[in-house]
């Protein structure tokens, strides 16, 4: 019996590969490869995000989408001459629906289509394919307007998809957020990392980090229910939900992020810097401002960049504090950032339609923007670390 047990143990050991002198270890090898494969999943995910968000937007990039309200109308004879794929697109059918329909049904559908086209709008803009890049980016003089304008108006007869108001909205709101959050967060980071007593620091840091634990939907709720009316009473502006309010509440989400990154950067500066400055007779503040801050400046810059990225990408706060998309540079007008547009409109957009595709295009744009910002911040932080550790 014991012989058998020993044999089994030996077998197991051989499999794991811990017998003396044995170099082949199949299980080890397998586990190692498995771990390697799984650890690639992060890279895979980033690629998948890029591919699948962009994929849905490809027709916009290639300009193969047509959003014109008036489409060309074909008679039954003309339509039956079309290739099957072209006919399917003309009838707006899915592959399956098209395969299920016989020739008679198709002819009927073509007639229905022509019938519907009779009450087409007489508007000159109805022929315009609004998903073309020039309509997405440049001002256009729409019927009823007396000058070219930038308009995002995805509902109605003629869908106006100019993305400039959304970009401006994002920029306006994010800049307000940064202007509010940066000074406060940096001041706090300097104080906590260099000036506060260690015992105070012990509870200050987790307390500020707790602010980042508040879900953004709660911040949005707070902005909408409490801040909106309070700010309107103080400043007395017209529009209740405007870029200023959105930016300010967005700042609440940006503060803890900027604080923790800047605080990290300031803490990595060797303590000897501070000690040397103090020994030469400077005050603690002078040392912190003239010595520590310049040494950690790249890290502080990275904190600002990441804070900007966070502000651009934050959704719920701006969704709850923004309303109409207006092309205006004023802070006290309503603004609709990109993220708010996606969140608010995607559910109502027709699946696979032009509005849907344009929202995905905005998502891809947002992804690329934050990708670049992250890369920049990453680069700067690693440079800083190398410099402070004395590596070139």
């Amino acid at each position, binding site marked *: 019996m014991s012989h058998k047990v020993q044999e089994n143990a030996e077998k197991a050991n051989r499999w794991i590969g811990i017998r003396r002198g044995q170099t082949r270890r199949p299980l080890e090898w397998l586990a190692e490869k498995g771990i390697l494969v799984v650890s690639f999943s992060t890279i895979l995910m980033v690629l998948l995000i890029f591919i699948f968000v962009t*994929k849905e937007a490809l027709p916009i990039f290639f300009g193969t989408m047509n959003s014109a309200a008036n489409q060309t109308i074909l008679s039954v004879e003309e339509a039956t001459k079309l290739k099957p794929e072209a006919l399917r697109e003309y009838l707006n059918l899915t592959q399956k629906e098209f395969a299920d329909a016989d020739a008679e049904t198709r002819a009927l559908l073509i007639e229905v289509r022509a019938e519907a086209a009779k009450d087409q709008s007489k508007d000159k803009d109805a022929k315009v394919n609004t998903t073309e890049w020039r309509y997405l980016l440049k001002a256009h003089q729409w019927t009823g307007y007396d000058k070219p304008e930038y308009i995002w108006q995805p509902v109605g007869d003629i869908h106006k998809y100019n993305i400039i108001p959304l970009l401006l909205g994002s920029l306006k709101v994010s800049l307000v957020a940064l202007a509010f959050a940066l000074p*406060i967060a940096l*001041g706090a980071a300097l104080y906590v990392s260099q000036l506060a007593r260690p015992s105070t620091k012990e509870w200050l840091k987790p307390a500020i980090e707790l*602010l980042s634990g508040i879900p953004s939907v709660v911040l*949005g709720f707070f902005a909408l229910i409490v801040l909106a009316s309070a700010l309107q009473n103080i400043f007395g502006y017209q529009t209740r939900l405007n870029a200023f309010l959105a930016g300010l509440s967005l700042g609440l989400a940006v503060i803890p992020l900027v604080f923790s990154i800047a605080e990290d950067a300031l803490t990595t500066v060797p303590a000897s810097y501070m000690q040397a400055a103090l020994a030469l007779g400077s005050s603690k503040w002078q040392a912190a401002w003239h010595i520590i801050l310049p040494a950690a400046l790249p890290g502080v810059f990275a904190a600002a960049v990441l804070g900007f990225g966070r502000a651009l990408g934050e959704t719920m706060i701006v969704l709850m504090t923004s309303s109409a998309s207006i092309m205006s540079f004023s802070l006290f007008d309503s603004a609709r950032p990109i*993220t708010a547009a996606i969140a608010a409109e995607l559910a109502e957009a027709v699946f696979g339609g032009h509005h849907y595709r344009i929202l995905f295009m905005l998502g891809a744009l947002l992804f690329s923007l934050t990708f670049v910002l992250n890369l920049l911040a990453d680069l700067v932080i690693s440079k800083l670390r190398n410099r402070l550790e004395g590596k070139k």
Partner: protein
Amino acid sequence: MSKVNKPFNSKSVDRWSVFFTGLSGACTYLIIAILFLIVGNIVWNGAPHFSLRFLTTGVDAGMFNVSQSGVFPMVVGTAARVFLMTIFVIPVGVITALYMTEYSKRNSVIIRLIRGAVNNLAGVPSIVFGLFGLGFFINFLGQNMDALMNPASAQAVWGKPSLLWASMTLAVMTLPVVIVATEESLKSIPPGLREASLALGATKLQTVVKIVLPQALPGILTGAILAISRAAGEVAPILFTGAAFSVQGLATGLTDQFMDLAYHVFILSTQSPNIEQTRPLLYATVMALLLLTFVVNIAAVIVRSRIRRRMRSFR
């Protein structure tokens, strides 16, 4: 020049230094004050309506019925999606962190690529994760699964928003959190432990599974907690991937849509027919959400500070 020539006097204090020290301190306490203002406002207004009955009843009496509606289905929905997410994200995150600290060479190309991907993933806007979940999980995976499993049926089973896809989307989003936390705790394990294990004849795999992983458990736990606290309050990623305005009964299957606490906060604060009247309901719901995330957060802070203390003692 005069400044430099001034004789050193320990009692003289630079006035600007005092001013700016005070200013930066004021910034710090302003943040704390904002935190207290928000939490205080919510607790003050939410507590009167917050009760056991509120937590254990559903919305059968109507979404905006102040006196009879509760948040039970939302709490269950949130718990379910967060639980599923944890199951998906922990193995992948832990294995990635293991590879980065235990197996690969330091600063190899692969490591740099993975680290770049982790940093990038951490910075992707949450709404983009929502788009990704819709584009990849639902439109690609789900619809193809439908086409493979029952091509005859026109009814979408997998190719629609559901609990499964929402949790998977959240898992992708929280992957960096778990990886970073686990990595931090793996690095805090003294190399002597590994060396001792290897010297006694254990293989690499045995060392990792029996020595390193048990030591890293608190760190993995922190990662899980942080991921949960991040995911519990997120709405944007689940907007298109699973959360529903209203569902009959509780979400029981993977392919069900679900009601969600954080999403419910959004609904109550933006779609209420009479915001003044539904205010108590709204505040109590926010309080429930805040309570959930804060309890989880504080747990993370405690576990984390223990790890940091251990790390210091080994140095």
